[in-house]
């Protein structure tokens, strides 16, 4: 699974390079010069990179135990149940993308969901409500922090934003629900 991800990442770079270079050919003479000067070497490098990554992943795969024939498997010593279990577990961990997460960390999907949630809250509710809802929700729900800490952090955040508003005249996003008139804006800043 890890090998596939590395190859996909290299492929994504190649697709980006090829697409950008191809699109550059449709621009005017002046406009396409530099994109082509950069795009063509980028495409070549991305292709070389993909080849290198595929070869590296194949070499790494080659070092792991190869599938054996039925006769060889029958002749082989029986594998200890613990070893089998840890191999299956290792495969599961890799599949779920937990290989770089620790026991205390989130999976890749959970981390992406967290980022999507805060972005969604920011878009819908605006900065201040999103800051309060997300911080308390995450610290209490995911981090299992105490109520005092979960309330202290958003309070400090709001204090910081208040300072920005009053002393630097920074304006905050109020949220789609407010700008479209679904809910009134009741905050003092």
């Amino acid at each position, binding site marked *: 699974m890890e090998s596939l*991800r590395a190859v996909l*990442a290299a492929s994504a*770079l190649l697709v*980006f*390079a090829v697409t*950008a270079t191809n*699109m*550059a050919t449709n*621009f*005017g003479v*002046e*406009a396409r*010069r*530099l*994109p082509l000067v*950069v*795009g063509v*070497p*980028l495409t070549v*490098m*991305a292709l*070389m*990179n993909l080849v*290198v990554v595929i070869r590296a992943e194949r070499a790494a795969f080659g070092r792991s135990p190869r599938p054996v024939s039925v006769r060889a498997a029958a002749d082989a010593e029986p594998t200890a149940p613990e070893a089998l279990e840890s191999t299956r577990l290792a495969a599961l961990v890799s599949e779920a993308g937990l290989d*770089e*997460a*620790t*026991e*205390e*960390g*989130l999976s890749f999907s959970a*981390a*992406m969901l*967290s*980022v999507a949630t*805060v*972005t969604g809250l*920011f*878009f819908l509710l605006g*900065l201040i409500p*999103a*800051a309060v809802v*997300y*911080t308390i929700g*995450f*610290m209490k729900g*995911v*981090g*299992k*922090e105490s109520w005092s*800490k979960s309330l202290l*952090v*958003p309070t*400090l*955040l709001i204090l910081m934003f208040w300072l*920005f508003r009053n002393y*630097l005249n*920074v304006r*905050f*996003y109020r949220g789609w629900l407010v700008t479209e008139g679904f809910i009134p804006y009741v905050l003092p800043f």
Partner: protein
Amino acid sequence: MTEALLQGLANLTPYVLLWMTVGVLVSTVIAIIPGLGGVFAMVLMLPLVYTLTPEAGLAMLVGAMAVSGTGNTITGVLFGVPGSATGVATILDGYPMAKKGLATRALTAGLTASAVGGVFGAIVLAAILPVMRPLVLALGSPEFFMLIFAALVFMAFIGEGSMLKSLSSGFAGLMLSFVGLEISTATSRYTFGVLYLVDGIRLVPLFIGLFAVAEMIILLRKGGTIAPEEALSGARSQITEGFLDVFRHWRITLASSVTGVVVGIAPGLGAAAAQFIAYTQAMKLSKNGKNFGTGEVEGVIAADAATNSKDGGALVPTLAFGIPGSSAMALLLAAMIGLGVTPGPSMLTEDLDLVWMFIFILVIANVVGAALCIAFTGLFAKVTRVTASTLAPPILIISLFGAYASSRTLGDVWTAVVAGVIGYGMVRFGYSRATFVIGFVLGILLERHFLLSMRLYGFDFLRRPVTLGIALTIVAVIVLPVTARIVRGLRAPHQEERADDSAAAR
């Protein structure tokens, strides 16, 4: 020159110094948190820069940059955990010293060496200025165009990580900078009919996404607390001892500071290389070189002096040529361009007072940063006990706020989030974010110089002597390592055959 110096000094109003102190404080606290280095602190403060006066905004960023290596010393010595890649060498002797009960001495020596190194770097920058001016003014658009390309190639070949991936990242960043309207013909490039993209991808949300959002994703995945429970400390009387150690071992302090400056001038090497080169050098210079790694204070001094002195050196190509050698310099360059301050020849003529202001800021920030760290070590060390679930949510919120605040467009928020996911992927699969952002920042300058060169000389600009010399150097840097590898590969089977033959003969 004298007028610019005095004007630079006059720019240091209480307002400017206040924001410099804010930058120093924020950067010190953030640098203590492993994984979040000086660039992260600068990224978080970037949106604020545009709400302040140019002098105050740049003072805040330069102050943050100047002490980005200072906070590393605290976690490195107390917990054996590097704050960032620039804090690894400090651990080699700092942590063993702490285990022997000499933590306070190690901290004071390291922090004082950081301050001395930083001041030295600023002095060198001031000394180099009169030499750089005529050199920079003699160069034209063709030379700058080729220098920018050389900087990118250099970064990829001598920087960290895979050469091919680094170079690809740099060129991908260059490609991304072409999104928007082309400057001479106003042709729309890569906009896909989206109005937001007509102005191009903005620097602030891109930086915030790549460095802040991406780091928070990594932090969410790692989880837990940053440092273990136990924290070691020593008697307060070791403070004097540690302070004097830096001057007692003045040869090592000086040599390491010089190393840091030289490495800083070369784009791509960075503080990670500076600290290890200085450490190895100190091992040879010291009478106790054999004991390095077991708790020699000279090892701590060498690493920290080099880490901070490199900033003065790194500012030379950034300010004089507009070529940043690291992510921090690229960010500083982006901020300057956003404020209407153009690095390069005009920086050394019309805006020379700003350059002098940077020099004074480097000196003051290093001293203030070190003094704060020495005074509040215990308090700063507690920051490392914060859990990921306490740190990540507010930082994500601040990141989205920062992305929106720069131009009050929701598109910037989406840019930051998408850049965050891409940045996470880049870290995951070993693609350099540093070369990517340098390519992106340089793309704007590259196109400007390219267009000017074409207008003035046509393709003949490539035949100018200095331009041709730089181009040949680029080719040599690319071709020579590849050729050497091929030759080694061809020789290897013959050497194996000779080894087999001699074994058979025996």
